[in-house]
C-alpha cells in the first residue's frame, strides 16, 4: 500500500517568512509524529498526535512552531517567522494505535521528508 507522503519535497524560503509542511500518513494509522533532522544528526522528536489531538508537543523548539491534524489524518506543520537555524529535513511518521496500558507499541513508518532551507 501507499506509504507516508510529504509535500513539498523541498522548500526554500527567506528569513522571516511563514511556511507550511504537509504530511499524509498511511491509511488507518491513528498515530502521527513529526521529527526534525539536522545535517549529520539523527531525527529529533517534535510532536506526536493520537487522532486529532496533540498528545505530546514537548519537542517543539519554541512558539513559532505549531502543528495541526484537524480530521485525524493529514497533518500540517507550521513555522512562523522562519530563521536560518530552522533549516533541516522535517520528517513525518505514522503508526498504528499505540496502547499504553497493554504496552503495545507499533513501529513508526517514515515519509521521505521535506528539506527546508531558510535563506
Amino acid at each position: 500500500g501507499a506509504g507516508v507522503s510529504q509535500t513539498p519535497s523541498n522548500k526554500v524560503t527567506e528569513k522571516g517568512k511563514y511556511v507550511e509542511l504537509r504530511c499524509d500518513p498511511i491509511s488507518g494509522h491513528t498515530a502521527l509524529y513529526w521529527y526534525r533532522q539536522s545535517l549529520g544528526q539523527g531525527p529529533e522528536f517534535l510532536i506526536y498526535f493520537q487522532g486529532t489531538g496533540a498528545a505530546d508537543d514537548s519537542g517543539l523548539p519554541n512558539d513559532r512552531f505549531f502543528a495541526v491534524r484537524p480530521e485525524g489524518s493529514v497533518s500540517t506543520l507550521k513555522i512562523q517567522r522562519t530563521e536560518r537555524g530552522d533549516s533541516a529535513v522535517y520528517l513525518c511518521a505514522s503508526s498504528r494505535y499505540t496502547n499504553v496500558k497493554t504496552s503495545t507499541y507499533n513501529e513508526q513508518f517514515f515519509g521521505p521528508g521535506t528539506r527546508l532551507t531558510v535563506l
Partner: protein
Amino acid sequence: AQSVAQPEDQVNVAEGNPLTVKCTYSVSGNPYLFWYVQYPNRGLQFLLKYITGDNLVKGSYGFEAEFNKSQTSFHLKKPSALVSDSALYFCAVRDITRSGAGSYQLTFGKGTKLSVIP
C-alpha cells in the same frame, strides 16, 4: 532522560564479510529498541525491533540485532554484507516505563554510515 550512542560515524566492510554496527542506549527503565536505515533522498526504513522475548531479533534484508541488557547494547549485524547495504543506519530507543504521552517518542542516535566495498 533516554539516549542512544552510536560510537562509529562510519563503518567500512568488504562485500561478503560480516558487518556490525554498534549501538548502546541509556534509559531509566526497560527499553524498546529499533534499527532504521536511510538511503540517500529517501525516508527512514524500519529494519527491526526488540520489544521483549528472545535477545536475538531478526529483521528485513537479512539483518539481525542482539539485545544485551547487561551491556545496554543493541548491535546490528549481518553475516554477509552486500554493496546495496551501503547506507546510513540509525538506532533508536523508547523507554517503556515512562508514563504518559511522552513515552511514545523515539530517541535516535546520530547515525552510522556503512560503506560496503566491492
